[in-house]
């Protein structure tokens, strides 16, 4: 190494080799921290390991290189062996970066800093070419900024230590910005793992050169650096969520929310949909051949109206400029400034503090009673649960509030009881959101329906599929008689245990377990493999339920039996048979 005072200005092959070896060693120490950050492109937590393996492949070769080798030769060997040993996406990109650097240093005995800076530029070009679809917010962004930093630095007649320092500093700045460029990072509250890996490697390289120099080096102690990485990992998710809460939603190219109804004869929905499709987004065309409801976000409501008018007469026309609502919401939020870039807003819904998540296309409200059922519905994707059920029908107001609270444009309601159906239909009339009420008459039907719920599909598709699924499940109920009666030719006395199948009284008995088994004997088809899910109620203990489940399994060996705590009042057991 050639020094000018304390300044390293000329780099030889052995210097590059030492930097590389030290960089690899240093990287090895930090690879787990880098693994922990890995969420892109696939969150498999192996970025650190893959980069380490790639570096090791190069280092192994470099160890046997003669100390008198030229810098061109050392870089060529490093690049070639990294390429052969490259693992993972980040490893491949890293190897290409070295490939470019080697190209820049080819044929050189030593390299001046300007030459080193230029080699780095080659590296960037190679790295970007390495991936079929370069994504910003990754190791590529960090590498590019490192190169930019070093390009500016070399013009200022500095030494290699300072050069690396500047390069690392600008890389770090870019690294901190990666979550802004790549949403998946922001969601996870981390910076890009590969980008961090590159910086760690350079810090290791810096350690190597700083040993030869008396210059004061910040940022070289392993611990200090690691502490800094963990800062990224433990970043408070709360703040991250807040900043993403305003992402998504409506596209400013289509500011006019246009809704109307067409009346006519033989209206052709698919044709109309096809005609309207290119005019905007969030298109919804629903109805039948006589009446069609149209909803679209568009830049040109005039052409939407014209197109609709060609099909029939138009009614209930409503056109809103969502930008107005957007600005109003923003200003009334007390933020004091208009937003930068109109990327966001939930147009029709007032924001409440709980609403951190982005506006969804379709939300789901389920009516349920019993802690077990509430948990199950929530685990299956229900956004709001309204308490209610048999003999405790929820007030319409509760349904209206739940529908308003769900941060979505459209809402599906699962009433899960025939008596709640009506209240749900009232809610539809009271709320200015598009709502579908699925005809679910029991909690098991509700669960069957929610299984088919798919937010990525249209409201109409969901409606059809969910109704269909609800009907494919049989609901059995075991409860007690509230009075003496003769139903379906079965005589029951008050307080007898009774068993119903899809609402019809089928059996009565003296014990709960016997009634359940008798009921199952009546409805189970021994030809079919069926799944029987027992939801035990509030008044049944877990151990009693467990015993019964075992009995059911023994008596019906062809069926698959699952036991769940439903926690429902009134019914000892609710049972779904599919």
């Amino acid at each position, binding site marked *: 190494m050639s020094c000018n005072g304390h300044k390293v200005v000329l780099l030889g092959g052995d210097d590059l080799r030492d930097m590389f070896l030290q960089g690899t060693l240093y990287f090895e120490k930090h690879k787990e921290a880098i693994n922990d950050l890995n969420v892109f492109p696939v969150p498999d937590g192996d970025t650190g390991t893959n980069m380490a393996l790639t570096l090791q492949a190069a280092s192994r070769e470099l160890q046997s290189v003669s100390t008198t080798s030229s810098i061109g030769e050392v870089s060529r060997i490093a690049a070639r062996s990294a390429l*052969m040993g490259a693992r993972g996406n980040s490893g491949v990109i890293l190897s290409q970066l070295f490939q470019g650097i080697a190209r820049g240093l080819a044929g050189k005995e030593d390299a001046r800093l300007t030459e080193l800076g230029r080699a780095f530029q080659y590296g960037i070009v190679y790295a970007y070419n390495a991936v079929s679809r370069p994504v910003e917010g990754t190791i590529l962004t960090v590498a590019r900024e490192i190169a930019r930093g070093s390009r500016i630095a070399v013009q200022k007649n500095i030494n290699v230590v300072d050069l690396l320092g500047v390069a690392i500093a600008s890389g770090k700045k870019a690294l901190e910005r990666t979550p802004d460029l790549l949403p998946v990072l922001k969601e996870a509250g981390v910076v890009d793992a590969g980008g961090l890996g590159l910086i760690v490697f350079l810090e290791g390289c810096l350690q190597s050169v700083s040993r030869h120099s008396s210059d004061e080096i910040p940022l070289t102690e392993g611990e200090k650096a690691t502490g800094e990485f963990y800062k990224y990992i433990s970043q408070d998710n709360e703040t991250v969520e807040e900043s993403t809460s305003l992402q998504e939603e409506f596209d400013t190219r289509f500011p006019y929310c246009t809704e109307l109804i067409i009346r006519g004869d033989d209206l052709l929905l698919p044709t109309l949909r096809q005609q309207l499709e290119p005019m905007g987004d969030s298109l919804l065309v629903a109805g039948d051949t006589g009446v069609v409801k149209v909803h679209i976000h568009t830049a040109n409501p005039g052409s939407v109206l014209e197109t609709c008018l060609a099909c029939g007469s138009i009614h209930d026309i409503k056109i809103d400029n969502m930008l107005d609502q957007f600005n109003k919401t923003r200003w009334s939020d007390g933020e004091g400034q208009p937003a930068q870039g109109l990327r966001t807003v939930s147009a029709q819904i007032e924001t409440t503090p709980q609403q951190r998540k982005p506006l969804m296309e379709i939300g789901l409200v389920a009516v349920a009673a019993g802690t077990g059922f509430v948990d199950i519905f929530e685990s299956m994707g229900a956004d709001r649960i309204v308490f209610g059920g048999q003999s405790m029908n929820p007030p319409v107001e509760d349904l209206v509030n739940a529908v308003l609270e769900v941060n979505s444009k459209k809402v599906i309601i699962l009433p899960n009881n025939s008596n709640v159906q009506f209240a749900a239909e009232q809610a539809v009339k009271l709320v200015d959101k598009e709502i579908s009420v699925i005809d679910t008459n029991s909690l098991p039907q509700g669960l069957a329906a929610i299984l088919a719920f798919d937010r990525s599909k249209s409201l109409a598709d969901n409606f059809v599929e969910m109704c269909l699924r609800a009907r494919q499940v049989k609901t059995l109920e075991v409860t007690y008689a509230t009075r003496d009666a003769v139903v379906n030719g079965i005589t029951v006395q008050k307080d007898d245990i009774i068993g119903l199948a899809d609402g019809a009284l089928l059996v009565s008995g003296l014990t709960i377990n016997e009634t359940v088994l008798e009921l199952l004997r009546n409805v189970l088809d021994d030809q079919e493999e069926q799944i029987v899910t027992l939801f035990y109620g509030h008044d049944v203990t877990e151990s009693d339920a467990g015993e019964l489940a075992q009995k059911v399994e023994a008596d019906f060996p062809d069926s698959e039996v699952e036991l769940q705590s439903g926690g429902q009042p009134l019914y000892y057991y609710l049972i779904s048979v599919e």
Partner: protein
Amino acid sequence: MAQVRIVTDSTAFLEEETIERYNISVVPLYVNFENEVILDGSISNAEFFDKMKNATKMPFTSQPSPGDFVKVYEKILEEGDDIVTLVISSGISGTYDSAINAAKLLDIKRIAVVDTTMTSGGLAMLVKEAAEAAAQGKTKEEIVALLEDKKRRLRLFFIPDTLEYLKKGGRIGGAQALLGTLLKIKPVLYLNNGKVETYDKVRTMKKAMERIVDEIPPAKGPFTLTIIHGEAFDTANKMKAMITERFPEAEVIINELSPVIGTHAGPGVVGLCFYAQ
């Protein structure tokens, strides 16, 4: 005139006979256990899942290096042949990037790399199409065009026994939303534009299989389907029976998963690949 040679990756899990008949080159991916790296396909599935069960840490998989492709390509180019490479979907693996970088390094004019958006049995079906076309003397360009068309019509559905492995391996994709459901459900997943997405959710294995078999288009004459599975011979045979009952003319091939795919889908997985239309 130059012949076309087919190169693919180990996740196609081709049977030895096919590899030999068409002189196909297979570049293996890696499965990295804590203290050992194995080449995909170098050990049997039973052995592999056993290893996985006994491992203290989940293995992770990695794509071949560009160098691995370079070695295979160099040899074929020396022999004067052109190359068509079929690789696992770039939505779930970086193998495509390794292959394309190797091709750029050597001779991009003579090497084509096709991102099949598939893997496993689906990839194997495409490889066989490509190899057959090459054997008939089709050019590199003709084969690539054929594959671009075929891959769009190919479907791959699968039912994992549990979502745990997809989650651990980071390939869960759109099926993420199914985690944490309290009811026991059988998710029917599929490769949609090369990524794992949820196709449906049902309660029993039988219904899940029926859901997939329902997707097979009505056939006029014989056609081929590939059942894929990870140590689930019984379920695979049940699915085969279900298919042949409905489609007596169908030729049903049963293929195991390569260990790399097994790492992500987990033991007990069963799936089906076929052409829609």
